[in-house]
């Protein structure tokens, strides 16, 4: 697989979008700068936000 090279640093938003379109570029960037905390926090919060409406629907059904 051909790797794209990029000397610039990708922002978190760019990494999140490029992981779907050009994942090699994100991973090449991670080789230089392996920051993960902000990404993990955003992923966990979005995951929670995607779950809460369904849980409240279950709670509403039970009550």
């Amino acid at each position, binding site marked *: 697989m051909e*790797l794209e090279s990029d000397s610039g640093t990708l922002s978190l938003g760019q*990494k999140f979008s490029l992981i779907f379109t050009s*994942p090699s570029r*994100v991973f090449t960037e991670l080789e230089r700068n392996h920051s993960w905390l902000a990404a993990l926090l955003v*992923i*966990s919060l979005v995951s*929670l936000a995607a*779950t809460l*409406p369904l849980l409240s*629907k279950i709670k509403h059904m039970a009550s």
Partner: protein
Amino acid sequence: MQQMPDNPALSSPEALDMAANAAIIGGIAGALLTPLLFALIVALLLKLFNALAGDKVPYRKLFSVSVYAYLPLLLSSLIGLALGLTTPAENFGSISISLYLLFPPDTYTFPALLAAQINPFILWSLYLAALGGAILMKSEVKKVGSYIFLLWLIYALASSYFGAASISNLYG
């Protein structure tokens, strides 16, 4: 098809309320912890591969790859949310983005549980983990991908088998 019978323990409103509270606490904990657990486990598996092949890469770099590899699964959660909001809560059991769609809701046989594991988003996430691991380890994507896929297949087969067996024991 073996289907789960109605649970008599949930017939009272109090029991139903307790079950709903347990589901909510479990759902919140799962939503927060699943991305972390996925990243920890996948990075550990990549590190085990790295012990035998490729350039040596620190665990924290493989962990960062695994965090970003979770994004397709996050996308599947958002699709699940969209489906859930447009589906009555009584029919949540019928919501699936895996091959479990081919089975009637609340079917817990081995093929049904195995089909529930075959989700394009998990395969996409595993592919990304293999791709990222291969780039960092300067190894072939095919080798890392085969290793990750084989381990996932063993997990899927074992969890489906034991899941179906334990449900069969519970409900006869």
